[in-house]
């Protein structure tokens, strides 16, 4: 996994709550053999006026001019701003891959769905929870300021607005450590190999019925 660096980027505001993973990446892309290239299909049904299919050429698809992502001023956005319960619905990790592939590195919302939140950390995407009143202020500021950028400093756990205002955020220490270093989870877990083996042995004694098939 790529290590997370400080991000300073354009903010894309999607003023909705309950943005579900079906909306982030529609299900037809789940069958795709590829694990990358989903950026062109991020918010596919909101973004284009036609129905998209995997493997299709996207450059000539009809664009929905009313969807905020298609506005010129948000081109190249690296920070996404939304409301509560972001990423609810299906566990598809494709939602995170699509956001990452599009170039999003940070999502700011007042709350996230649990599975999506976990999936973010596995892919170097930082989901940030801020209080609703701060989110309100951010939405308002973006409206009045084309090219509005936020700086997200993971090390100091602050976001910094263009006028220098800082909002601090919480992040669980170990998750931060993994993001900053780009660590692979499996390797870290296998450092506990001995603990796992010992646990297994005693677990088999305590709950032998679970291992009926294992001699």
């Amino acid at each position, binding site marked *: 996994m790529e290590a997370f660096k400080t991000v300073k980027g354009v903010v894309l505001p999607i*003023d*909705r*709550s*309950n943005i*579900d993973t*079906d*909306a982030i990446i*529609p*299900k*037809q892309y*789940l*069958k*795709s*053999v590829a*694990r990358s290239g989903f950026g062109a299909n991020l918010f596919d*049904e909101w973004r284009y006026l036609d*129905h998209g299919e*995997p493997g299709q050429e996207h450059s000539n698809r009809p664009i929905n001019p009313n969807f905020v992502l298609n506005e010129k001023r948000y081109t190249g956005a690296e920070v996404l701003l939304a*409301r*509560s*319960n972001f990423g*609810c*619905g*299906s*566990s*598809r*990790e494709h939602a*995170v891959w699509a956001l990452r592939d599009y170039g999003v590195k940070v999502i700011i919302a007042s*709350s*996230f*769905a*649990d*599975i999506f939140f*976990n*999936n973010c950390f*596995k*892919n170097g995407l930082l989901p940030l929870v801020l209080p609703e009143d701060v989110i309100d202020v951010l939405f308002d500021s973006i409206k009045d300021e084309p090219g509005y950028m936020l700086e997200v400093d993971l090390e100091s756990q602050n976001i910094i607005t263009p006028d220098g205002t800082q909002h601090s955020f919480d992040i*669980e*220490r*170990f998750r931060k450590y993994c993001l900053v270093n780009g660590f692979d*989870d*499996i390797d870290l*877990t*296998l450092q*506990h190999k001995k*603990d*796992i083996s010992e*646990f*297994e042995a005693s*677990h088999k004694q*305590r*709950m*032998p*019925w*679970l*291992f*009926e*098939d*294992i001699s």
Partner: protein
Amino acid sequence: MNTPRSHSKTLFEKIFDRHVIVTRESGDALLFIDRQLIHDLHYRAFEELQATGRTIRYPDQLFATPDHSVPTTAKKLTDIPQGEMRDTVAGLQGAAERIGFTHFDMTDPRHGIVHVIGPEQGITLPGLTLVCGDSHTSTHGALGCLSFGIGSTEVKHVLATQTLWQRKPRNMRITVDGTLGPGLSAKDIILAIIRHIGAAGGTGYAIEYAGSAIRQLSIEGRMTISNMTIEAGARFGIIAPDDKTLEYVYGRPHAPTGEKWEEAMAYWRTLPSDDTAVFAKEININAAAIEPTVTWGNSPQFCVGISDVIPDPASETDLATRANMESALTYMDLLPGTPINKIEIDRVFIGSCTNSRIEDLRQAAEVFKGRCVVVPTLVVPGSGLVKSEAEREGLDRIFIDAGAQWREPGCSMCVAINGDVLLPGQRCASTSNRNFQGRQGMGSRTHLVSPAMAAAAAVTGRFTDSRQLSR
């Protein structure tokens, strides 16, 4: 009031604690995962793992079946047209053959939706930890186990290590007391719960369902409740094992037998939450007040009783919710004040891991008997075993005689990636679990209901109180 003793625990905590291998300073625990279920959309996990030189730690604790991509008209792999769907199903089969884990392929009578066959085969047992790369893995919690949905990276983590890092969630208890009215079902209860706590009401929690109305439900009904827990934001929806649970599990292919059964049962009896266990949040619901329920928006929390009308966003004080309601009404092409029973539908889908078990089909058949559908109706059993049981009971004849289509098991129009799909603008009464925009096809309009309500809509062409059609 009882003072909680320090060692008193909830059902959830008992199972969680028993599976902790080590705990990090941060509070995250490395949990031992007893069993993993795999469906077709995750077939690439095996190649990806092996490409990095890793092996599968416990193939014996891995159970797979193709469900998402199987066409409901296909009986075997070669019936699927060449292309992604077939590659996906073949990919899983190939991995099973190479690695040697249990795989219920399309020709296996035990094949079906992963969350239907887990309990059916006794793979799901009380007290275990079970994961699947699918958010509706919460279903299995109905048997009193710790089951939860995970993403692709975590699927590989479990394959390689048989463990997962988890932060212990807070516990919420939802107590549903009172008697559910005749003609109502578990689906109405869970929709009422989601309406009450909201689509994010359970985020960060493990929910335990309790109360007389939950105890009265069959295990299948309880699975419908646990299944939709994720629609309230919680990954875990757990119900204490009781005599019904043990009776359900007993004799299933992967359930323990003989002495091991006795030993397991003794442990399972210790699982219910202690009387003095503390829940971070308690919710009480009165079952007697629940009506047959219909969703009208693009989140399951947007639902009302059949005798109600479409609510007016203008009366909603929370601005974000109001905006959500407005966009939902536009998408769903509905106006505030419209009586639910005046809404006409174009299609009906009866199936999905929420409502495709034998009881669900019986409830639908009860309404279909002697009537004819007036809109295209698809009935898709949750597994091959459900299908053959339904056929043994003659339910298939009732569906077919009513003009409905009776298909092969799979996810079908719940997720609409197998070819069963609504056309843009079509309105569907569906027994599935998600009414998101485009869920059943681009521009599709989904209303979630119980099997009886779906059948009533199928024979009348609009939402109809199924109780009026009961004999």
